[in-house]
């Protein structure tokens, strides 16, 4: 390969692409050519860098300089100043909140500092569309080791020793699953990669496939060898076009290089992988539905047999992140992997960190890291100086953990004990302006749409719970609603067949567990303490602050504000629809949100949640 003196590692994950990373790439290449730098400097498109909040981002190597929020108009200056003359452009670097000086080097930025990359080991370092890049970073070396030096039983033993557990949600030990499939009678055997990531706000699996598709393929080939499978499927949703495209390229390259197909790596092992695209139904992430969907049937869950089958034959299903961990475990050894994490949860976990934190993005951290470290050290704390209230983990099936438990270490057991779950790894950070009843309502609405309709308890029970929550949010809650919600939750859990129904009440149960007062305020006091539920709060103009500029009056679509120029304005509550236009437009922040009845109990409650 021709040597370059500089590599521009431009993030082309979905987040940065939606911020025009592909156009920046084109302009970069044109501008480099204009300065005759095209033979000295290479532009390398990479997968998700992780720091999505600052996208489009680019890391300049070998200097390690991190540029963020790039636009086409910045390119000329970057090329002339930094790439030609070697003077990094400070105005395009990242400045942490509360600090004045930008941080030039990526390794010095807090967001990256606490992360430990195992599943995402190649993120930002390789071009996902070039198999040579993956091989250069020890790609397929684990496969070569497995095929030439190890028996399938040894591979399974290694994975068991590593303590790797399924990253898709339930956390079942991967090695034990493999062992049972190896022993299961029936030929041929199948391998499936579950890439049907459906949780709102979750993009871990998508990013892994977009940034390093070969790591997933290699893991699958190793798994196939261990289990004795001859055919594999990646079940991925059609809504992930970039991931599907890169996966397709990766499969074709692997076949061309003899890493898939017959006689892999010149030996006697045959295995091939196909992509199966799903239409994006949440229930398809559930094992038996997923299998039905691959078989071409309607994706309804079935009574779970002791061993799941595909076309009546044994099948082993693991999630994207689980597969991506496999090659490193085989290459570096079970002991190394088991040295990371907690007693029962080994290794690292990839999370998509979203919500009210400053640094939203894709992070990989060792198991056992505390919620506080993730939210404050990596996430940079809450945006707009608001107070941390809760963190939602595990997607719609998970739950909300209050800020008072922020020192909780994140692992499978601790999250379950706290009434939530690891799930696939979505983390939604909420602040004091989020209403927990509204959050539960949102998730139940999602689950109402996504229920497949097979079991009565889930099909009928979840919508009833949703309507009750919607009523509470609209100020029509009645005494006894909370108890009825709890009773219904138990019924839905008991009488649903699959994981979707069994976990659907979790958002309600976990918010009731930690924020029962907020429910009571909605029902008894007709008050939304967070000022989210429109019928339960009102806007006021602070007379001491208002300077009568009239901006609110102009913006109001319902003529609900009165007041003369340069004198205090007033909101006519009868006509106000609480659209929030005045709140957004006021240059003095004189418009305030007020709970309908200010309860001292509520303010005390919020005070207790302040992080120590």
């Amino acid at each position: 390969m021709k040597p370059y003196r500089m590599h521009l590692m431009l993030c082309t994950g979905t987040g940065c692409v939606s911020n025009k990373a592909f156009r920046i790439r084109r302009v970069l290449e044109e501008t480099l050519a204009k300065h005759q730098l095209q033979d000295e400097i290479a532009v390398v498109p990479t997968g998700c860098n992780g720091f999505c909040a600052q996208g489009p981002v680019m890391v300049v190597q070998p200097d390690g300089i991190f540029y963020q929020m790039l636009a086409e108009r910045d390119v000329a200056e970057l090329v002339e100043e930094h790439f030609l003359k070697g003077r990094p452009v400070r105005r395009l670097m990242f400045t942490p909140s509360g600090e004045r000086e930008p941080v030039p080097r990526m390794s010095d930025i807090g967001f990256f500092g606490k992360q430990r990359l195992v599943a995402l080991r190649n993120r930002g370092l390789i071009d996902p569309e070039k198999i040579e890049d993956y091989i250069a970073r020890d790609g397929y070396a684990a496969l070569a080791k497995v095929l030439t030096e190890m028996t399938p039983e040894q591979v399974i033993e290694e994975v068991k020793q590593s303590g790797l557990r399924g990253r898709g949600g339930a956390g079942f030990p991967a090695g034990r699953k493999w062992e049972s499939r190896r022993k299961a009678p029936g030929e041929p055997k199948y391998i499936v990669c579950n890439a049907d990531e459906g949780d709102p706000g979750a993009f871990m699996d998508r990013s892994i496939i977009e940034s390093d598709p070969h790591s997933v393929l290699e893991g699958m080939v190793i798994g196939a060898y261990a289990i004795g499978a001859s055919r594999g499927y990646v079940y991925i949703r059609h809504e992930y076009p970039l991931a599907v495209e890169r996966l397709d390229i990766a499969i074709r390259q692997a076949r061309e290089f003899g890493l898939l197909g017959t006689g892999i790596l010149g030996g006697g092992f045959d295995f091939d992988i196909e992509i199966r695209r799903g239409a994006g139904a949440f229930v398809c992430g559930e094992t038996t539905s997923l299998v039905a969907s691959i078989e071409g049937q309607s994706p309804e869950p079935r009574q779970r047999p002791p061993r799941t089958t595909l076309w009546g034959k044994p099948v082993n299903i693991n999630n994207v992140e689980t597969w991506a961990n496999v090659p490193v475990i085989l290459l570096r050894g079970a002991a190394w992997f088991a040295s990371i994490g907690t007693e029962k949860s080994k290794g690292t976990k990839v999370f998509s960190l979203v919500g009210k934190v400053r640094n939203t993005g894709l992070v990989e951290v060792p198991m056992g890291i505390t919620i506080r470290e993730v939210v404050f050290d990596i996430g940079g704390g809450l945006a707009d100086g608001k107070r941390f209230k809760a963190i939602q983990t595990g997607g719609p099936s998970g739950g909300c953990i209050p800020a008072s438990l922020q020192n909780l270490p994140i692992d499978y057991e601790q999250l379950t004990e706290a009434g939530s779950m690891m799930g696939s790894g979505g983390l939604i950070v909420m602040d004091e302006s989020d209403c927990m009843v509204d959050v539960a309502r949102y998730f139940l609405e999602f689950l109402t749409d996504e229920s497949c309709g097979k079991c009565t308890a889930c099909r009928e029970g979840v919508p009833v719970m949703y309507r009750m929550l919607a009523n509470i949010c609209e100020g029509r809650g009645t005494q006894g609603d909370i108890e009825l919600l709890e009773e219904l939750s138990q019924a839905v859990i008991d009488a649903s067949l699959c994981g979707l129904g069994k976990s659907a009440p979790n958002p309600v149960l976990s918010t009731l567990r930690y924020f029962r007062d907020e429910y009571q305020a909605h029902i008894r006091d007709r008050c939304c303490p967070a000022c989210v539920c429109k019928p339960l709060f009102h806007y006021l103009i602070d007379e001491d602050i208002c300077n009568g500029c009239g901006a609110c009056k102009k913006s109001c679509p319902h003529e609900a504000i009165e007041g003369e120029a340069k004198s205090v304005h007033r909101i006519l509550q009868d006509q106000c629809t609480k659209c929030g236009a005045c709140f957004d437009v006021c240059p003095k922040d004189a418009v305030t949100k007020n709970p309908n009845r200010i309860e001292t109990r509520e303010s005390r409650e919020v005070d207790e949640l302040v992080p120590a």
Partner: protein
Amino acid sequence: MPKLTPEDLASIRERMARTMSLREGKARAHVTVHLGTCGIAAGARDVMRVLMNLLEQRDAEDILLTTSGCAGLCSCEPMMTVEVKGQAPVKYVHLDEAKTVQIFESHVLVGKIVPEYALAVGSERVG
């Protein structure tokens, strides 16, 4: 593309080693060409081109080539700074193709400073 064997994987890794060490920022020697306006006018881009070719010819994996702005001594351009790991950086002045080749062969590859073209050892104190 013929089907790979385990040995082929190793040779691809070797072939790509320079590319990867650049991305990981690992290096034994660090060569900086001063590409300020003065340097460019005096021919520093030719120096850069010579160095790029040398890197390719010698297949030197662990040498980083970077640029920086004017070193402050415009009358002595083109200039470059060579820093071998664990040693003080050395600034070379009034470069041309022949001198660049000689410095690369001697200092960068073998670690032997070429005193006749060197301006000084070390850098200014910063801060």
